[in-house]
């Protein structure tokens, strides 16, 4: 590290002491302060420009597009007439919207309940100290680190109706006679997509919940066990209350990431069969990039943003009240 001798530490003030110079010096230091602030903000400016171009601009552009008749021909003619709320009316009155909204909610709630409860169990388990625990806990991250498209490819092979490993095993165990149409039956496909998304999401839940558990002091558990508390009792009176802030974060992020996820559904089922796994992001994708109704796709994705924001505000408010109460 750099060496500092005492005499280099006096370059802070060059001005004369006292007298009429004081006022001038005060003004000079104000302007130096401003220059300082400007020079300091310069470090943040690239990030702000990036956010303006790749987050703020798209959100505004998307909002504007949702009020335009924006189709493939708009790209050639450069014309996209304003049409008021007609895209929203088309989207909301279409046959697909409410089944899609329902799918999105079932997909999100199912994924989060599964990821969170299994993730919490695993995190509590890995809090114990045993040989290889750190190594095994790190390996557990793998499903989350793989590209989601890779995860969907390998689950499509596992869930194949005729020769997939899952049906082969169930068949060999005598549990089924004919293969379960995991991804090809409209009544099962959404459940299968949820199962895959739980598998993808468990590692993330374990990682964050484990971090939260690490912050709970061991002495609390020791004191509780001296008082005769069993594992369930100490979980309820120590782990759960102290883990609440972490739970808030993991739930909030989980819901937002799941609501907006596109690749799990597209990779596994492309929204089918018979739209049974269509969610808001995939519907928006199909409207924009398959039907070239960019205005409708924008409207659908704006509805998605509103749902995410309303959920986040509502959730943060209620959980903050719970924590402070």
């Amino acid at each position: 590290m750099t060496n500092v001798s005492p005499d280099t530490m006096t370059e802070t003030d060059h001005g004369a002491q006292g007298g009429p110079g004081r006022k001038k010096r005060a003004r000079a230091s104000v302007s130096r302060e401003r220059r300082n602030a400007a020079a300091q903000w310069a470090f943040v400016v690239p990030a702000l420009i990036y956010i303006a171009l790749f987050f703020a601009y798209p959100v505004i552009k998307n909002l504007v597009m949702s009020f335009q008749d924006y189709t493939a021909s708009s790209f050639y003619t450069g014309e996209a007439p304003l049409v008021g709320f007609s895209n929203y009316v088309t989207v909301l009155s279409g046959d697909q919207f409410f089944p899609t909204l329902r799918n999105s909610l079932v997909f999100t709630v199912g994924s989060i309940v599964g990821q969170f409860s299994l993730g919490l169990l695993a995190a509590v388990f890995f809090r114990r100290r045993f040989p290889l625990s750190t190594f095994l806990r790190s390996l557990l991250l793998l499903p989350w680190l793989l590209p989601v498209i890779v995860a969907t490819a390998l689950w499509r092979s596992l869930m194949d109706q005729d020769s997939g490993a899952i049906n082969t095993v169930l068949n060999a165990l005598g549990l089924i006679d004919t293969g379960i149409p995991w991804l090809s039956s409209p009544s099962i496909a959404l459940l299968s997509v949820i199962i895959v998304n739980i598998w993808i999401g468990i590692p993330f839940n374990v990682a964050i919940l484990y971090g939260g558990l690490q912050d709970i002091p061991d002495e609390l558990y020791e004191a509780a066990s001296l008082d005769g508390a069993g594992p369930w009792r100490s979980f309820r009176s120590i782990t759960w209350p102290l883990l609440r802030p972490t739970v808030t974060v993991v739930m909030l992020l989980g819901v937002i990431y799941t609501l907006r996820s596109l690749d799990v559904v597209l990779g596994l089922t492309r929204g089918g069969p018979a739209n049974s796994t269509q969610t808001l992001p995939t519907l928006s994708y199909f409207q924009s990039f398959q039907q070239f109704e960019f205005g409708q796709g924008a409207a659908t994705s704006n509805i998605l943003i509103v749902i995410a924001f309303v959920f986040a505000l509502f959730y943060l408010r209620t959980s903050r009240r719970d924590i402070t109460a």
Partner: protein
Amino acid sequence: MHRAFLARPARDTIIGVLILAVMLFPVYWMVNLSLQSSGSNLASSFFPTSIHLDGYRTALSDQSINLLTSVLVSLGSVALTLVVAIPASYALAQFRLRGVNAVLLILAVTQMIPGIVVANALYSAYNSLGILNNIVSLIFADASHSIPFAILLIRTSMQAIPMSVLEAARLDGAGRFKTLRSVAVPVARNGVITGALFAFLFTWSDFVFALTLTTTEAVRPITLGIYNYLGADQADWSAIMATSVLASIPAIALLIVAQRFIAAGASGGAVK
């Protein structure tokens, strides 16, 4: 108390291995299938008794160029992420700026914006600028997966640098930028490395921009290569699985050689 539970650690290790075996079975199965003979057949023995490399041959002849595209885009995104995130995280951690909280709030809010919203608008903008199917413009879009995350993550390690260390450098006559480069970044290098690794993995896994901002085969990341394989009428499973194995190499390799950083990033950036 310890004596009474002497056998427990061993039992816990066995349970832990079983949990891992269940969770990682699909990954094992991917490798297993990738070594089967080519074709649409999925029925296979539990171990690859006879090893076939047909899948890898097909994968490499179809997807080599896409793998290369993914490598270039991911490295570009790492560079862009670091250039933008390092100074920002330093300023947000160490300078007493008014408005730091507003910037942090903005960064948190960016996490709530769905990729399809960004893709919808960027497609239209890129199209009018004529920069669809372009590696550089794809890099800029993909960095949106990692820049806010990296700023928050690197900021945490920048906050841990003692004020006195930075002041010492400043008083030695180093400017703010030089202090950042020669003092702050080396001291906070763990955070910087973690941010870089995750920028790579996030971009490597990107699907939404690969799907929407490329329309020809000119610039086609590997995720889209796999997606197109999956859409074929007759799936060639050994080729799909071989490509999936190749596309999993970064995640697996980093989990082995950089486990410490990956574990830190998984629990760090999201919470703080």
